[in-house]
């Protein structure tokens, strides 16, 4: 576990230092000439998308947990 974390931070620091940057400013956030999904957001339909993706994600996580438990039972059965 510790090793994985070390590797992770190592690679984070690699990418963080190696890029030429043009900063994003407040004008970018307020630039209404750029088209975004504003209608979808104002109608609240974006929440439908979030709900759909969340259900899929929860289903996958739930199923992974199920497999995990099943494996634990298998491992216990083998020790007897």
């Amino acid at each position, binding site marked *: 576990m510790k090793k*994985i974390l070390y590797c992770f931070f190592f*690679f984070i620091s*690699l990418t963080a230092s190696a890029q030429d940057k043009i900063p994003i400013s407040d004008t970018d956030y307020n630039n209404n000439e750029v088209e975004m999904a504003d209608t979808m957001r104002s109608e609240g339909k974006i929440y439908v998308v*979030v709900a759909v993706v969340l259900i899929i994600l929860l289903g996958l996580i739930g199923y992974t947990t199920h*497999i*995990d438990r099943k494996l634990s039972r298998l491992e216990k059965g083998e020790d007897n």
Partner: protein
Amino acid sequence: MKRNWWKFAAAILLIYTVIGGFLFEAPRLNILNETIRALHFHVPMWFGMIILLTVSVVYSIKHLSSSNPKYDLIAVNFANVGMLLGVLGITTGMIWAQFTWGEWWSGDPKQNAAAIGLLIYAAYFVLRGSLEDTQQKARISAVYNIFAFAALIPLLFVLPRLTDSLHPGNGGNPGFNAYDLDSNLRLVFYPAVIGWTLMGVWITSLLIRISVITEKRNNY
């Protein structure tokens, strides 16, 4: 339960990624528009892949120095899930490229390099499949894994930076170069990287446990 805290962490970070990734404010940039949110899903695939493949190569080295067959199982399963994340990364990247760069495949240096890298790793599994003797299979594929990793790092991190690339941070690509400077995006992006990586590690841990059980079964 205590030993499984990181699985909960993975679940919570991914739920947060989906909610924050879709709902938080993102910079309004030309060409990118809302697709900037793909940052929280496409890029963590590559971060996750690199981290898993690093773990894989570490265990390959450990296997070579100790001949412990368990290390070989760990190495191959990490490489497996690393490949999965890489394939997901390259397909999501192609979709994103079609709608921002205008082509599914534009021969971008980083695109090409990633494809070559994945092919090199694909050969790792072909090599494993072609060897009968388990000890020989473990040793030869461990050596190959080190070679593959040593080829992958310059392919992804060095060569694309030497020429112009459409990918941010490689050559000149204005407008999107700064995504990792932007604190709003970073708020979701870093948790996303940790979450997706932990999810990859979780799946890998399941595969390793399956391999251990089948190994035991084969030996009795």
